[in-house]
């Protein structure tokens, strides 16, 4: 009898974990279904070709599906603008990122390298509204000295986006550079090449696929970025015909007009989201191709054809060494670029964080009521206390939803799947797709899926549900990574003692994986606090009173910063808000990093 019970318990456990995984797939399906259903009428009314290739956008909120149109809806200027800005970002962030990665991997001494690497990770955690805000208060005034306008436009957008993709490029490229076998380095140096020649002629080419993959992923980020771009691009629906001409990207189109959109207009904006989603998924597909290539290439290098590949590599090194005499100048320039980029990235970072600190701290000290003051309607005395409360609600609800589902999905994928059947492949593909969906598209989905359920107006609950889905893929992936890091021998040890799967998972695997899971939780908190695009039209964007229930709407801290910096009257309050945001996010990121380090040390048995 007990045996039967134990068996049923195991079965129930497995079903539970599988159900969580199914929820992830349903989420993907729902996003696509809702977006397509809601955009089909617009595509029908406007014409797919005319919508995508038309280069005139002048929307009319009074347009309905039953009457003739009085506005025109063509998004080609925005498609063009999106790609131009992305290329601009790649020219800045890609180039600096690549050389910074080379600098960190091959030129930087160990201690600064460790500090620098974790600082780069922190840079990735800074909310995009803070980047946008930095653009408004620092970059635009600087650029306006040489610009015919206030400095906004393509150049400002490219710079801000470039800085934003920097961490992605640096950390992924650095990883693949460091994965190049040390033997290549030694072989090249042994043939008489010096350090820089070896780095740029042998090591970097060997890491090519990984570096390209990092650039492609960065392109995906840049295409989907919303708030920072909205804040510095100018946003008029024109082609960007100069460094300082105001232009609009796809994501900005949604943010700019959704707030007051009429029937056809809303359909057209959702259709904009569909087009954006299409491009981003395409880019992610390309990323998948390159990262797969990078993985197989490194496997090839290290295992399969170790000797032949090595010989080939040596031959290449020899050729390189012969050609060095002619091209030493190029290598010197590269070396200069590497060191220069490293310094540039460090300066950019310090500038953003330092600037916000220097400007924000006096505001908080002079007027601490910004943080805890009582909200009064239409008062000059802005307080962000309601936003802090709203943000806390959102963090709590979204983590309660997404952590169990994400963790259980990870457990299912890592502990219950011996082989790669179609079901597993669908789940994995679904999670990959979720990870690629831009945040504004999540916002759109939440607006058309969750907001109507909860009475048709924005609410903390609708916003939190939206961001929960957005958190899922990262939680699943990082939990799976930490489950994977638990040694197989640990599981075998438990099974060999007659323990079942559930007991093994809960007593052996999860405790060992806990540091990784905890840091995933903390990073997710940071993400909820940082995000703004998914909240704008789901949770609300008006700074009002402290919410009484989860059915109230409210602006999260990041959304509040967007509002305050856009209005222009409350720039001091905006500085204070930005500072609060940065401090919270940095504290969370640092905690996550320390926690992971500390616990993994403990697990290694240092305390015995």
């Amino acid at each position, binding site marked *: *009898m*007990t*045996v039967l019970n*134990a*068996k049923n318990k195991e079965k129930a456990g497995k079903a539970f974990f599988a159900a969580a995984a199914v929820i992830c797939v349903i989420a993907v399906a729902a996003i696509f279904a809702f977006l397509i259903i809601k955009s089909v009428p617009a595509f029908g009314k406007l014409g797919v070709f005319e919508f995508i290739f038309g280069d005139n956008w002048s929307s009319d909120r009074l347009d309905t599906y039953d009457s003739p149109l009085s506005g025109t809806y063509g998004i080609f200027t925005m498609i063009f603008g999106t790609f131009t800005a992305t290329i601009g970002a790649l020219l800045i962030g890609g180039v600096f990122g690549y050389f910074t990665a080379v600098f960190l991997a091959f030129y930087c001494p160990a201690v600064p390298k460790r500090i620098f690497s974790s600082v780069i990770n922190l840079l990735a955690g800074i909310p995009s509204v803070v980047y946008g805000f930095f653009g408004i208060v620092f970059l635009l005034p600087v650029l306006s000295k040489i610009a015919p306008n206030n400095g906004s436009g393509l150049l400002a957008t490219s710079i801000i986006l470039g800085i934003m993709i920097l961490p992605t490029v640096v950390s992924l490229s650095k990883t693949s550079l460091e994965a190049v076998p040390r033997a290549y380095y030694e072989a090249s140096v042994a043939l008489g090449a010096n350090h820089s020649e070896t780095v740029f002629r042998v090591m970097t080419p060997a890491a090519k696929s990984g570096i390209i993959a990092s650039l492609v992923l960065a392109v995906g980020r840049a295409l989907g970025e919303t708030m920072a771009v909205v804040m510095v691009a100018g946003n008029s629906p024109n082609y960007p015909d100069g460094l300082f001409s105001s232009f609009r990207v796809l994501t900005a189109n949604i943010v700019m007009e959704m707030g007051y959109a009429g029937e056809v207009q809303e359909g057209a904006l959702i259709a904009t989201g569909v087009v954006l989603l299409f491009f981003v998924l395409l880019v992610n597909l390309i990323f998948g191709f390159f990262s797969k290539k990078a993985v197989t290439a490194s496997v090839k290098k290290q295992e399969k054809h170790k000797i032949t590949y090595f010989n080939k590599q040596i031959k290449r090194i020899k050729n390189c060494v012969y050609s060095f005499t002619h091209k030493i100048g190029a290598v010197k320039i590269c070396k200069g670029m590497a060191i220069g980029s490293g310094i540039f990235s460090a300066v950019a970072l310090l500038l953003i964080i330092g600037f916000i600190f220097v400007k924000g701290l006096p505001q908080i000290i002079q007027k601490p009521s910004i943080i805890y003051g009582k909200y009064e309607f239409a008062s000059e005395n802005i307080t962000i206390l309601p936003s802090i409360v709203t943000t806390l609600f959102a963090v709590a609800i979204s983590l309660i939803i997404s952590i169990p589902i994400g963790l259980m999905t990870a457990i299912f994928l890592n502990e219950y799947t*011996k*082989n790669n059947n179609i079901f597993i492949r669908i789940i994995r593909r679904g999670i990959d797709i979720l990870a690629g969906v831009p945040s504004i598209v999540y916002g759109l989905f939440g607006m058309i899926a969750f907001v109507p359920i909860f009475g048709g107006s924005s609410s903390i609950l609708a916003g939190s549900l939206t961001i929960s889905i957005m958190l899922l893929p990262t939680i699943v992936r990082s939990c799976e990574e930490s489950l994977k890091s638990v*040694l197989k*021998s*640990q*599981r*075998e*040890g*438990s*099974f*060999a*003692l*007659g*323990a*079942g799967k559930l*007991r093994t998972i809960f*007593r*052996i695997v999860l*405790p*060992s994986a806990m540091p990784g899971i905890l840091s995933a939780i903390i990073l997710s908190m940071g993400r909820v606090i940082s995000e703004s695009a998914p909240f704008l039209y789901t949770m609300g964007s008006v700074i009002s009173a402290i919410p009484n229930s989860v059915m109230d709407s409210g602006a999260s801290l990041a959304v509040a910063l967007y509002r305050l910096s856009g209005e222009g009257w409350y720039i001091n309050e905006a500085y204070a808000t930005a500072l609060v945001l940065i401090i919270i996010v940095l504290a969370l990121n640092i905690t996550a990093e320390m926690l992971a380090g500390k616990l993994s040390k403990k*697990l*290694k*048995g240092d*305390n*015995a």
Partner: protein
Amino acid sequence: MAKTINEKKLTGQSISVKNANLWYGDFQAIKNISVEIPEKKVSAFIGPSGCGKSTFLKCFNRMNDLIPDCRVTGEFKIGETNIYQKIDVNALRRNVGMVFQKPNPFPMSVYDNIAYGPRTFGIHKRSALDQIVETSLKQAAMWNELKDRLNGSALGLSGGQQQRLCIARALAVKPGIILMDEPTSALDPISTGKIEELCEELTKTTTIVIVTHNMQQATRISDKTGFFLLGELVEFGDTDEIFTNPKDVRTERYITGRFG
């Protein structure tokens, strides 16, 4: 509660295998092996790397179930129970313990490591667990070494201590058989000696099947020896017999060091 499980526990101590075959996908790793392993003796499997001896060993507690695309045919009997019928695998593994090539203590205290098995089977009373921990450590001849650091992390022990702790952990659920998969290959000679002594001591109550790369080890500790080659069990018999008077020429060539 504990009593119901005891009744369900498989209690056999001898192993009888008829016409065993095992495939990993298309690769046949075990080819038609039949063997009778006697109870309360040490039986050793020797043979070159990749000859299937570890794979065969893992059939006895069905650890091969964990490997995708692994297929087993033939009859495996522990005592009177055919273990590839519908049985409770966890009860099987309770009776057939296992010690692995590399020590794999759990990242918890010494005490919790040993109590893990008993707790799995529903023993939670502190006094009962204390008793089991003490007996198991005494059986593994490490009570005196460890009695003052029961609450210290098992990961802080030396490699040899860790492996003996793993043996104690296996003993804590009172198995009838213990499988050892090259248990000393990662250890120094002194720790190896301690584990070999322990094996002999354990045969008073337990059947031991050990896979080893070390022929001296097989001669030192085993009563029976089986020689594996390319998935076949070439010869199985009394250890003295196998090493002094092998029937098969392949066995002779292997033990005299001509290949492997």
